[in-house]
């Protein structure tokens, strides 16, 4: 049996060297948040699962567009009623998630827009903020109530070419896979960062570079797996959802909001 060097057999006392910067912790938090959101997505599908996802996507786009086009508070009130009406149909947990997200993004928007007052351009700011919040709310409701598989199905229903849907599907799948690896890598780096890293950028670049090499290898392996299963460039999506009475009610609500937009003087 080989003998270990003396220093390895001795107990060491070490006073950690201080170091600035929390880039590892911030990266870890951001990544954990992303991976958690992607994990939750299938469960979130329970909320709006019975609505046709393409319909939800088109409605969300429609509402955001109409809000953006509007120039008066009347239509914004109607849009708020529409969106909150949709929101109150979701489960409590989803509502909390949506509101948390809108609040965070809304505060950020406020921070950007408030200085306009100091510049004498504060007029109309509540109106602008209202529009920003309504757009955020619509997008947050859509993404919280629609799992990724449903979103992909929505694109497929809207006749987006299959190769794009496949690319999107693969992207989401590999964000989870490569993201889990990146998470471990960040943890490993953090565990070994016991003092002062004089080459922080180099360490982080090593992580990113290794991630890229893994990505390339994964792509090659994925291609070979697909070849073995006789992939010929076509990607069949068998998730096209039908339409039910709930969808009809939803379409009616959409038509109502468009009618209101027109009746209110094209959003004035």
């Amino acid at each position, binding site marked *: 049996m080989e003998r*270990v060097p003396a*220093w390895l057999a001795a*107990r060491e006392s070490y*006073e950690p060297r201080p170091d600035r910067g929390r880039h590892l912790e911030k990266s870890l938090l951001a990544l954990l948040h992303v991976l958690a959101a992607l994990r939750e997505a299938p469960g979130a599908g329970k909320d709006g699962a019975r609505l046709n996802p393409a319909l939800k996507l088109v409605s969300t786009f429609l509402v955001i567009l109409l809000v953006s086009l509007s120039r008066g508070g009347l239509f914004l009130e109607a849009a708020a009623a529409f969106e909150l009406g949709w929101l109150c149909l979701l489960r409590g947990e989803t509502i909390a998630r949506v509101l948390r997200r809108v609040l965070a993004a809304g505060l950020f928007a406020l921070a950007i827009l408030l200085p306009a007052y100091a510049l004498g351009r504060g007029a109309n700011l509540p109106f602008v903020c209202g529009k920003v919040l309504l757009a955020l709310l619509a997008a947050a409701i859509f993404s919280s109530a629609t799992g990724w598989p449903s979103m992909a199905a929505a694109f497929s229903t809207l006749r987006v070419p299959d190769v794009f849907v496949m690319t999107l599907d693969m992207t989401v799948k590999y964000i989870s896979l490569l993201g889990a690896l990146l998470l471990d890598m960040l943890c*490993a780096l953090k565990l070994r960062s016991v003092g002062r890293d*004089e080459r922080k950028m180099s360490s982080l670049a090593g992580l990113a570079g290794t991630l890229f090499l893994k990505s390339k290898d994964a792509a090659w392996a994925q291609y070979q797996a697909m070849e073995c299963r006789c992939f010929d460039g076509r990607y069949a999506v068998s998730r096209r959802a039908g339409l039910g009475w709930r969808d009809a009610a939803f379409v009616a609500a959409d038509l109502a909001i468009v009618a209101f937009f027109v009746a209110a003087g094209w959003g004035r």
Partner: protein
Amino acid sequence: MIELRDVSFAYPETDALRRIDLRIEEGDSVAIIGPNGSGKSTLLRLICGLATSVSGSYRFDGEAMTAARLSDPRFAKAFHRRVGFLFQDSDAQLFCGSVYDEIAFGPRQMGLCEADFDGRVADLVGLFGLRAVESRVPYHLSGGEKRKVALASVLALNPEVLCLDEPMGGLDPRTKSSLRALIATLNAAGKTIICATHDFEYVEGLFRRAVALSREGRLVRDGPYDEIMGDRDFLEAMNII
């Protein structure tokens, strides 16, 4: 040295560990065994501070290991130096441009002078037989070489405890044997070894103690390794073999 009392841990969808009571003394060599999904990796991550329990208490050397305590950078750094963790996937642990830099990463952080950390790297390269690959990029090494580099880079910090997550996974028999010998040497030199493992063929005589986790994440048995591994009925019932 390591004391877990009534520790539970849960992921968002599932419970991973339920009410674990575990004491590990300095110099111990413990195998954590159990079927897939029993929480072996989670237990190791908890011990090395990558996760904190939702309930119960974890004390390391008498010090309570709470999330608040671990958020203190100075304390966390000192702790992480003392408890080393070997990831299941070696690629997660290797990010430097050469084997030398990889092993030198920790000692450089610690502020050792060049002569000292150069000495450490040389010692570890010799110990692990990595001289031929010292200047190569770790990413393209073989699985066995990567595992050795990863372990060497952790040892460069001179930790007191080594948490190994499936160290034998994906290795050829010869590498398994040499790794086994190394781990035995480290234990003999006073390192505490805690190892999650499926691979029982190559770990004969390596562990004095075994801790068995059930599929639900409960600690069902804790005793001498040979005694537990000799109980075939138990192992089959637990889906360990």
